């Protein structure tokens, strides 16, 4: 059986480790409180996450955090809590766009652009590399060993590394 290359095994190990990290999870009231207060903004105009708003003299964050704590203790679901905040303070209270309606575009666009650009770059590299690789392969196959070794030496000394 053919052995897998080193880099494939390393990638597999990395993906496995990441998957394990995400598959393990625990939920408790404390982490839920932290999670929710990081999904809301302070409404005083300081542009800070509610859970991290600690600037001097903030008139809003303490009250809003208390409200959040009370909602969690009251047994409300995450969606109900966020909806109640949106109802009270408007959509700007959410720290990030939601994942429905037009807001979804905010999340999709970066990844779509990244994927398109990645695909484009790969195609570009392949297009630029095809002809040259064949030419080089053809040329080197015809060379005598001494000449090939000399070319390799030149390539090592001039081509390796360097900006």
């Amino acid at each position, binding site marked *: 059986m053919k052995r897998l*290359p*080193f*880099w494939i095994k390393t990638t597999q190990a990395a993906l496995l*480790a990441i998957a*394990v*990290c*995400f*598959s*393990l*999870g625990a939920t408790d009231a404390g*982490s*839920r409180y*932290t*999670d929710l207060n*990081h*999904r809301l*903004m302070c409404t005083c105009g*300081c*542009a*800070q*996450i509610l859970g*991290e*708003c*600690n*600037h*001097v*003299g903030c008139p809003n964050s303490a009250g809003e955090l208390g409200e959040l704590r009370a909602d969690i203790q009251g047994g409300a679901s995450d969606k109900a809590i966020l909806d109640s905040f949106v109802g009270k303070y*408007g*959509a*700007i*209270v*959410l*720290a*990030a*766009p939601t994942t429905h*309606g*037009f*807001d979804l575009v*905010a*999340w999709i*666009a*970066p*990844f779509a*652009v*990244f994927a398109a*650009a990645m695909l484009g*770059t*790969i195609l570009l*590299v392949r*297009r*630029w*590399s095809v002809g*040259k*690789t064949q030419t080089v392969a053809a040329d080197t196959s015809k060379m005598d060993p001494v000449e090939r070794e000399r070319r390799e030496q030149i*390539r090592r000394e001039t*081509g*390796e*590394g*360097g*900006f």
Partner: protein
Amino acid sequence: MLKAYDGLRIASQAKFPAPPLRARIFLESSFMAAFGSFALLIALALAAYNLLAGSLALRWIATGQPAAISPERLADTARRAGIAVFIAVTAAAFALIWSVFTNDFSITYIMEHSNRALPGAYKFSALWSGQEGSLLLWAWLLGMYGFVLRLTHKTDVKLYAYAGTIMAGIQVFFLAVLCFAAPPFALYQGAIPDDGNGLNPLLQYPEMVIHPPMLYLGYVGFSVPFAFALGALMMRYPGEKWIKVTRVWTMVTWLFLTAGIFLGMHWAYAVLGWGGYWGWDPVENASFMPWLTGTAFLHSVMMQEKKGMMKSWNVWLIFSTFLLTLLGTLLTRAGLVSSVHAFAQSSIGTWFVVFMGIVLAVCIFTYVLQRSHLKSEHHLESLVSRESSFLFNNLVLLTACFVILWGTLFPVISEYVVGNKVTVGAPFYNRVAIPIGIFLLLLTGVGPLLPWRAASFKSIRRNFVLPVITFWVTVIVCLVAGVRPWQDTAIDQGNFYALVAFAVSVAVLTAIFSEFIRGAGVISRQTGKNIVEATWLLTRRNTRRYGGYIIHIGVVIVVIGLAGSAFDRNTESELALHDKMTIGPYTLECVGFTQDSNLNYNSEYALLDVYKGGKKQFQMTPEKRVYLITGQPQTMVAIHSIPSWDLYVVYEGTNPDTGQPIIKAILNPLVGWIWAGLVVLVFGTLVALVPSLSPSTASLRVPARAAPSEPALKGGRP
């Protein structure tokens, strides 16, 4: 427009007999307003002459049309007019500074941004604390860059003439805005107040004296590479020399912008009192976007120099960078999006939008007209090569730029499309931009390990084994140390990304140091020098390459510092005399709280003795000021910084019932690494700017170990 002439009108109304003392003072002071307004008008006229005469001369030279006067002489007069623009704008800037220092509250700008008790250094910074002043700073810095460019024109007379003319076009825009839309010397209407409104307290901090000029040097500086790129394209510049000229200007500008961004981060950290340094605020984002495209250019330009590839791409990177600097200024100054940087906002947005439209149209027109000049052969031998890594590096940098632009403008887009303004805050960027950043960090390490043209599997394995091992060792160490990436809030709080960032950082550092050690080892064997001397010589032989590596080290150090933010802790407590509070290994004891007062502000502060392991280590004095003229409060955070963390203490105020101070303490891990990383980054950039040792110089300075034989000197075999 009338405002610009108010100073002139009032000054011209001075008639004999001599007016009473108060009126005389007014007339003398408004003389500076008239002087400044005149200086700006003269500068505008000179810049317009530079643009028109320069364009005409270059057109005549390009087409060979017969002309009544020598086009070369006309071009030279245009160049001299460009030099004179700098002198005229300097005079206007001097007039404004003079007016600030002489408390000339007859000028509206001075009245709104200064007061009598303002300390001298901050009077100086009043120049950029408001819109009109900061636009004047833009124009002055542009004039300064243009001055240097025009003085060094003999490097390449024609290319510099094109660049100088394009810069004159930019200068005309800013001077027109200053003369007609945002005049800094507009006179105060009504009775002149005895004192001004004072400077925004947030700006009364030492870094604010250097952060804005540094940032503006970066913003404005990108006009120069833009002018060279557009000029080279217009004149169909033969060869790649313009790239070498542009690269130096770009690096200097990039350095200023980098320093400006970091100084702004440090200011936010030390002044705003929330314990952080980056809030993904639109204006912060605006400064970051040209940095990203500028960085992409500095990398992809190597492809053009080495391989003659990506010519169109590089030209557009420079165009985009310049347009993004204009967008940044627009966001800062026009209030297009909500920002905490609301120091100066007005309706000059239309001017900027129109100018950006004109610039874009000129760029597209020139590109379409001259695109045949940018045709280049693209050959890559392998997907796994240095060339490919540059392409992916550009891809990631530009995607990051797009993500930030998208996040910054999405509230505006959303409001326009569905009529509903949304917030795009840190959670969005944490989920979208940070993964891209980590990928970029990975490329920082991978790129230099890949050879040009193609990499063999053997070389990949040889170069990558050690970094991969250190990556996994770091992951294990972090897990053992208590990082828990599997918790529910690990993504939002950054724990997961912090773990990945630490591991990738260590791997990248290993890769870069391996490169240094490998190269230094060869030199050490060749010259007999020890490894430190060999590393020094190695760096001097190829300053650009190893300076770049040092910059990468700086970036990695910064990333380690940023990743530390995932683990910060804070506590808050009201402290009576000798009460204590504990955070991390520290115990803070309140040994006093008192008040102080001077002409500028009243202050309250606490004296806190800090203990660690039962031993007193140092004392901290967090302070809260209230500025007399504005009544605005200002925190003066006490920070004790060591490599492992910052102890960050804020005086939040006093409990009105007890009169006792409320103290907030934050333990911010690894913040010092961010500032240390900047130092390394600046050092690396300076190294990269120094010319490498030429082979002849190097051979002269390397001590001869043995006299070479005669055939070797003649080029034969020894």
